């Protein structure tokens, strides 16, 4: 005992020093942000309405992140793996549905029956994304289940490239513009109608998802597999099927997100999934990965910080083109959350087991 004690002591102290440095850096960052915010607010460039607008824009963007993040979080919760290709699943739905939307628009159906068209687009996109997600799982992930974690991460990166460039090859590299849906044009209070549509979409999807997980047999199976795959198998749960269901549901949501994205941002392109994919992952981590409401909250918070952050934090220092640093803020948040609160804002759920 006496021999072991000093050793443990020094070991402990060294970790403390490194932790101390980390905490100091964190503290400095916090101080910079706080000081910047105070300076900005005192300078008073922005009106209250403008601050409100920042929040509104952030929520609209964040809602998209949230929808994509739900898929990340589900897959992570069940499989403990980052489905790096999820951004591409999102893209595949949006890209493919463009042709449907374009067809509906040309034939005049879109104008005549906007709601039916919208539902058709959402379903179509969901189905395409679902198919892609399931195929990716089948080919790139399932044969490697149980292999070291790095392995599926690498196939996921591979799948991501494969999908991006397949879509580029099939449909070209050009930017395509979705037709406008007449009923969703214009503003309602401070929001664009499309933004409201996205927001409502997120709420409905989240609610359906929670219901699905809590109330259905398949949902129960997924939750069981998320906690203990082997024990679930011993209960008679078909683990493969539960995992496929997870990918299918996550993919479907990504497809929905794709169309909603196109409603707000109009333009789609083969490259469009990459950055939202990473941001959505950040959102999922922010909310506590594996936690469904967390993903939604994380998405919104990230959106708002990205929108408001550059002005709030940096304007006071008079930094040039502060908006350019918005992704720096996003990634810094990601890193800080991982360092200081790896379970995210709401803590992780869905899954069990210790990780990190």
């Amino acid at each position, binding site marked *: 005992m006496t021999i072991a004690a000093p050793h443990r002591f020094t070991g402990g102290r060294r970790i403390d020093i490194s932790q101390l440095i980390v905490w100091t850096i964190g503290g400095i960052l916090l101080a910079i942000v706080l000081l910047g915010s105070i300076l900005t607010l005192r300078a008073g460039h922005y009106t209250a309405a403008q601050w409100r607008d920042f929040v509104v824009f952030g929520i609209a963007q964040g809602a998209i992140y949230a929808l994509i993040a739900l898929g990340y979080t589900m897959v992570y919760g069940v499989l403990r793996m980052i489905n790096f290709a999820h951004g591409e699943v999102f893209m595949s739905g949006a890209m493919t549905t463009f042709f449907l939307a374009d067809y509906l628009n040309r034939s005049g159906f879109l104008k005549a029956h906007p709601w039916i068209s919208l539902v058709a687009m959402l379903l179509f996109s969901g189905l395409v994304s679902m198919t892609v997600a399931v195929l990716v799982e089948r080919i790139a992930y399932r044969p490697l289940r149980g292999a070291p974690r790095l392995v599926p*991460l690498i196939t996921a990166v591979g799948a991501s490239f494969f*999908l991006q460039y397949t879509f580029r090859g*099939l449909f070209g590299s050009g930017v395509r513009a979705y037709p406008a849906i007449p009923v969703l044009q214009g503003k309602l209070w401070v929001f664009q109608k499309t933004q409201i549509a996205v927001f409502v979409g997120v709420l409905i999807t989240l609610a359906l998802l929670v219901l699905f997980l809590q109330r259905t047999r398949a949902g129960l199976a997924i939750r069981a597999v998320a906690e203990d795959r082997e024990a679930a198998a011993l209960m008679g749960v078909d683990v493969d099927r539960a995992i496929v269901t997870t990918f299918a549901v996550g993919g479907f949501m990504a497809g929905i997100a794709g169309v909603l994205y196109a409603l707000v941002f109009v333009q789609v392109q083969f490259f469009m999934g990459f950055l939202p994919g990473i941001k959505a992952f950040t959102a999922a981590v922010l909310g506590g990965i594996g936690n469904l409401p967390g993903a939604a909250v994380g998405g919104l918070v990230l959106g708002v910080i990205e929108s408001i952050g550059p002005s709030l934090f940096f304007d006071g220092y008079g930094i040039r083109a502060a908006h350019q640093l918005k992704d*720096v803020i996003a990634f810094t948040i990601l890193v800080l959350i991982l360092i200081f609160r790896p379970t995210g804002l709401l803590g992780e759920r869905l899954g069990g087991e210790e990780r990190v």
Partner: protein
Amino acid sequence: MIVHAARRAIFIGLVAGIAGWHLSLVGLIPAFAQRRLVGDALTFSYALLVALLALAAYATGRRYPGAVQRIPWGILSALLSSLMLFLLALLVTHLNLRQILLNATPELARVLTFGGGASGAGLVRLLLIGLLAGLFAGGLSALPRPWGRVIVSAALMTLLLGLLRDVLGPLLPQVVTSFLYGTAGLSLAGALVTFLLAAVLFTLRWSLRAKAVTARATAAVPATLRQPVTQALLLLILASVPLWAGLFLSNVADFVGFYILMGLGLNLVLGFAGLLDLGYVAFFAVGAYTMAVLTSPEVGQRFTLDFWIALPIAIVTTVLAGLLVGLPVLRMRGDYLAIATLGFGEIVRLLVLSDWLKPYLGGAQGVTRIGRPSIASWRIDSPQEFYLLVLLSCLFAWFLSVRLRDSRLGRSWFAIREDEHVAQAMGINRVTAKLSAFAIGASFGGLSGALFASLVGSVVPASFSLLVSINVVAVLVLGGMGSLPGVVVGALALVGLPELLREFQEYRLLVYGIVLIAMMLFRPAGLLPERIHRRELEEAVEEAREIAPAEIATGRG
């Protein structure tokens, strides 16, 4: 039994057909049709289509012991794939799909049917070629042991030589070039000679290995001398590259060198210590920008340092950067570490891009007029001259890696890789071990970046995207994590080869994705696996299959 075999043949035939559809519709097949490999007839796309059909036949046939079963089932598969291709040709010709699918052109139909068009003639041609491919693949696998392999290797060699016409042509003596190559690709005679030569060579190699002649031949040399002699020979060849390789190949070699350096650096972190760093590009960027800022008159203090002074400063800066990244992520593992480091990588890129730091780092304009090294009066300027510097750095990094691997520190990295908790319980100081992995690993990346900046002469933020990090990880994965020769092989394959085939860059990332997935599925330990790692990984994958028997693996799907 028959039913099962038929189902299998049909399944594989369909899969190959779908693969053919994919390759056609993404534009690979039409693009490759421009490239003639042998004579005027054999284009790259024809070779690819035939290979696809033959592969289908081979995959179907390999299950069965004898030619009697192999050949017919193989032919069935190949014919089915041919039919699928013909169907695509028909669709493309008769439906106007171009509004949606860019590559659904009449041209595609022509290529797919080997020039026959979507008509009876095309169908006959396709089926005939399917039949031949099936026969060929079945017959090949039915040949006694070495011959099938020799023929395939020689054929691949010939095609490769044809493909690399523009690279190799200028390097070879005029006489050889004009004999081997026609107006485009190999001439028929050239192809024949190449094929025969390659076949002889491969046969020789095979029989040498079989009879262990190599062992006896080398045994003649005293054991103490053997290694230095082979090493010296290897080094001589390596060092002489700029003398024979020419401008372009030397440039490619330099870039391969940069990736070898980065690969060796990441190998310390990922291969040895098992820490997945997806933001390795950060160190490359720090090295490059330090070099740029210190030696270019354009930014910062507007004073310039000599390359040789800037280089060590760049390395020290990256070591510091390594520590800065390493410290906060000490407690992280696995996915979380990967994502956090990815975040760091992006942050660095975004900062160098920003207008905010433009006065110091050049912003979007980047930095140009970066200094080049000179020794006495000799200015190292061209890729050829740079190559020697790169080679020297790579060798240095290699030796350092070897020393580290066999050192106490190396062992503690391995221990952490295997099980962090156990390692800590054994008295390994996790903090020191991890930080040193990050710091030393970073320094290789910084060295690479500094050389890169100096060679290219200018840096812009776009050069430091996430893709670089992923590239380096892929280099390790392909070669085999933890394996030093693997890094070299990986860099040659993933950086060198695509450079040689630059005109197909459009498809580079597509192929890249396929390679990453295929490697993980079929050879997870890499091409040149490190010994310990291989066993471990294969067991894990094996176990994974046992627990959740994958239909793909057992072929029941």
